[in-house]
């Protein structure tokens, strides 16, 4: 979302404009969801983190110092709350089993929701392949791309806040990850 717009919408929402708040939710909730999903939270945990982030944003609305950076505020909060969930798992189990971090949602597989979507029927095979190759990318690339694919596209400042990586490294890393994904798709197509 355009940052000037975000700043103006936050100000209007502070002044009591519910439509402005709704526009903020429309424009920024895909970013929040992407950050949560980038951290591979289960459905239940992802829902709780998402709610916590938005409830807290509503509380802080009139207190946010830089309203035009509300997207970064949301991304940072979503990241911190996601990391707390992951710390909670580690605390519950004495191991450092990295597979724990790979816990994904079990109640709804991508394949199922794909079948649910008529819109996707025509190109479902292509989308399915793309998603599978994306899921199998290294963790760093998978995380970055999951945040970048929020709609509307996040700014690099928001991506930086979401993942705790320097703004300057996002461009090169993005290029590399997309190139790697392209190579995997091409290799698969050729075989």
């Amino acid at each position, binding site marked *: 979302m355009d940052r000037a717009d975000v700043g103006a919408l936050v100000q209007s929402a502070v002044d009591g404009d519910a439509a402005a708040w709704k526009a903020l939710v429309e424009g920024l909730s895909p970013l*929040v*969801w992407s950050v949560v999903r980038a951290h591979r939270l289960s459905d239940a945990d992802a829902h709780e983190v998402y*709610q916590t982030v938005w409830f807290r944003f*509503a509380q802080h609305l009139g207190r946010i110092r830089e309203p035009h950076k509300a997207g970064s505020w949301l991304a940072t909060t979503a990241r911190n709350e996601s990391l707390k969930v992951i710390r909670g798992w580690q605390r519950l189990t004495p191991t450092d089993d990295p597979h724990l971090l790979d816990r994904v949602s079990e109640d709804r597989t991508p394949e199922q929701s794909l079948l649910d979507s008529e819109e996707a029927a025509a190109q479902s095979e292509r989308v399915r392949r793309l998603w599978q190759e994306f899921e199998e990318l290294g963790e760093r690339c998978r995380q970055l791309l999951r945040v970048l694919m929020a709609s509307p596209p996040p700014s690099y400042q928001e991506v930086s806040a979401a993942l705790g990586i320097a703004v300057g490294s996002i461009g090169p890393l993005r*290029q590399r990850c997309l190139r790697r994904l392209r190579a995997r798709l091409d290799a698969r197509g050729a075989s």
Partner: protein
Amino acid sequence: MNHIDNGDNGSNGDNRAAGADDGFGGESVLDEAEFGAGLLEEELRQAAAILDPVPPELRRLAVDAYALHDLDARLAELTFDSLVDAIPVRGATDVPRMLTFRTGELSVDVEVTAHGLIGQLLPPQPARIEVLGGPHPAAPATLTADTMGRFAGELPRTGPFALRLRTGGEVVVTEWMRA
């Protein structure tokens, strides 16, 4: 939406066509590489919209959360969370979560256990406390802190919670937390 060049992020000083990535030569090659990358990213964006969209019920909850925008209450911010600020004892599992919220002179210590919550107001004082569970409170559970500032009660089964305290003439609400 076609944001291949990410032109809507005008203030994003670092444009996405940031090349200098590796051995590419002329600019046209770079542009072409960026064009391809932009297309692939857009394809991923469409795939995410189909395979992993924001669940509609969550979007609605976020819209409804506007009701939680409460300027009359003082906000007690989280200043300690054992999940972040405490080093776990080796081998200790199932340790209770300890949270501290502060605003001005008032602090609220909360311990979350499997059975609910136990709390302490400092400085010690009586209070009426509502346990909020979201933007649509059916009828929030109400607790009472005694003259020593102690309180205990249950938490919502799922979802984040916040405490709304009335002490003396004041209303204080804690930041929303996942238990």
